[in-house]
């Protein structure tokens, strides 16, 4: 490989990106748009769920329970209605996601036997939100119930025994607040790399064919390897820059913790870029048209990275056959590495399985990429 020719190719490619508005948008704005969209849009947790209440009793006890809902950050009690139909209509009209019905004999039964129930009607249109709302509602009621229970025990002179019931104390590591943004945003770096890298590299060879410059390149002494390396090196640089941009944005704007090593972050990013750029390059060689190549490239990189990498949908919750497939998805290793670097504080030494898998991918893809292009018109 001749260094001067390779450098000339890189310089040319970089100048072309710099002067092409479309490429610049992909390089500069795509990462920001992507991380903003996913950071704000793709939250899996629910806050401020709108709630309507129907208090059929109107006692001190029932009001105390409703206050507990009001105090919770997960719920906004918007309105109290006075009949069941109004509540059903509100759910049908999507004015609330949750309806709480407190029966007329609530406090009576509470005092009596300590056993009563509250009805919660959940809008199940969105399965995920419904499950969350149900869970949060149960938590609020459970807290209230245990307080009532303690009071009851207290009134019956059993306070000392009952005030110390056995309880399970959960503690979540790495994402203490169980915030989905912390879970999702590190993975968006992989999404940005896949989209940006595949889009730009898929244009490289196709552009030479479409603009009629390929014939001269073939007629020159430049080798296929020099063309490939020269063309892709600028994108590795741009990719690292974009990765840094994403990380700064994730930490500075969304407050996602970055606890791991910078070296691990950039090293795994380089490995991932080699795979993505190699795929984009091979597609570019095969299709020879910029439009076709970019469409294939997005399909082959973005789809598996968003669906099967564990970026948003946890792999261990997938059905077994799909879970098996994810082992073949190169981005799962990068997404896993990113999450462990951001949240788990991992350094290079902690990421051996991920790095080994990604290195194998980089070597295999790199090997085929160097053989993809032949200097011939046929």
């Amino acid at each position, binding site marked *: 490989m001749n260094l001067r020719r390779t450098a000339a190719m890189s310089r040319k490619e970089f100048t072309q990106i710099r002067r092409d508005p479309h490429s610049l948008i992909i390089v500069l704005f795509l990462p920001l748009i992507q991380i903003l969209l996913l950071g704000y849009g793709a939250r899996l947790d629910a806050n401020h769920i709108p709630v309507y209440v129907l208090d059929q009793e109107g006692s001190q006890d029932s009001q105390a329970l409703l206050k507990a809902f009001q105090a919770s950050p997960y719920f906004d009690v918007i309105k109290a209605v006075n009949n069941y139909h109004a509540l059903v209509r509100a759910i049908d009209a999507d004015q609330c996601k949750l309806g709480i019905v407190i029966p007329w004999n609530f406090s009576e039964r509470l005092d009596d036997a300590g056993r009563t129930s509250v009805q919660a009607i959940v809008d199940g249109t969105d399965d995920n939100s419904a499950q969350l709302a149900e869970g949060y509602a149960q938590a609020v009621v459970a807290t209230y119930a245990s307080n009532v229970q303690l009071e009851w025990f207290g009134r019956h002179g059993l306070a000392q025994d009952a005030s110390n019931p056995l309880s399970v104390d959960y503690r979540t590591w790495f994402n203490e607040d169980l915030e989905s943004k912390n879970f999702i945003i590190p993975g968006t770096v992989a999404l940005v790399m896949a989209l940006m890298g595949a889009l730009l590299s898929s244009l490289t060879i196709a552009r030479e064919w479409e603009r009629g*410059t390929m*014939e001269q390149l073939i007629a*020159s002494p430049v080798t296929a390897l020099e063309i490939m390396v020269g063309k892709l090196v600028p994108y590795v640089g741009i990719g690292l820059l974009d990765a840094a941009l994403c990380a700064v944005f994730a930490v500075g704007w969304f407050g996602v913790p970055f606890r791991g090593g910078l070296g691990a972050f950039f090293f795994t990013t380089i490995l991932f870029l080699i795979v993505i750029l190699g795929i984009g390059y091979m597609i570019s060689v095969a299709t020879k048209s910029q439009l076709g190549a970019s469409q294939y490239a997005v399909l082959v990189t973005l789809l598996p990275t968003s669906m099967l990498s564990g970026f948003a949908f946890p792999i261990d919750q997938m059905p077994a056959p799909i879970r098996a497939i994810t082992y073949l998805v190169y981005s799962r290793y990068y997404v896993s590495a990113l999450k462990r670097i951001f949240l788990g504080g991992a350094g290079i030494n902690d990421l051996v399985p991920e790095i080994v898998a990604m290195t194998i991918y980089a070597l295999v893809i790199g090997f085929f990429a160097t053989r993809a292009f032949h200097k011939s018109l046929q």
Partner: protein
Amino acid sequence: MSDEIVQVDGLTKRFAGVVAVDNLSFNARKGEILGLVGPDGAGKTTTLRILAGVLSADAGAVLVAGQDVLVQPEAVKSRISYMPQQFGLYEDLTVTENIRFYADIFEVSRTVRQQREDQLLEASGMSRFRNRLAGQLSGGMKRKLGIACALIHTPQLLLLDEPTTGVDPVSRRELWSILYSLVFEGVTVLVSTAYLDEAERCHRLLLMYQGRRLFFGTPDELKNMLPGAVLSISSPDPQALQTAVAGEQGILSATAMGDTLHVVVDDPDRRLAQLRAGFEHAGVPFGEPRRIAASVEDVFVYVISQQETQQGS
């Protein structure tokens, strides 16, 4: 001969069963301009592409500076320069950036490059446009920039595929003067052209038809192939005169050119009366037939029409 820089022997190339180049043999000497002429589809572009090492061949041998291009295409590429018909400049790079890219690709040393770049831009009158993007140049200037890029590494052999197609007459003339100065430096130029007046400027011509060689020699030798003489008849409607006499006995070919008709006849003295009779029958005014020197175009039209009638019968 030792000064033969190109030797092509029995070159054959097929595309999906169609023969594009058919057992073609020719050579080119150091410092000559060899013109490839022939109608569209004659195999000129395919021949140039094979010589440039961008296309493989099915049979034959192609020696460039003693190296077989078919066996080792990469070995000769640094000594050749090839400018395809659709010369693709990087339109988003400036004039200088384009030249420097090719200089780097061909590993021209920086001092030589600077000198050569100045000289080439000066010769093509483009020194003022160094920092202009190639996409913003006129058609003729793009061609000249293409030639400058092709010449930056001082090749021994320059292959040009229809370099003057779509270029204005002034730029065409400039282009040819660049070619002559190259020849003076000892560069061999192979140029295909659709303009037959340009064929006269070449040292030797290779006339191709359907992949085969019809003629190989100097323009004068080509003209001697014409058996009879060329008569020029001016008329407001030469097309009508052409249909009136075409195909008659002794009329070898008739071609309307502007407001004149060129007729190739086997024996001018015998055919004059016959022509007049035919023209009068057409009912179009016409001037006195004059005998003119045959141009390459006249011979070209004659040779091609002979081929076509041979194939038709």
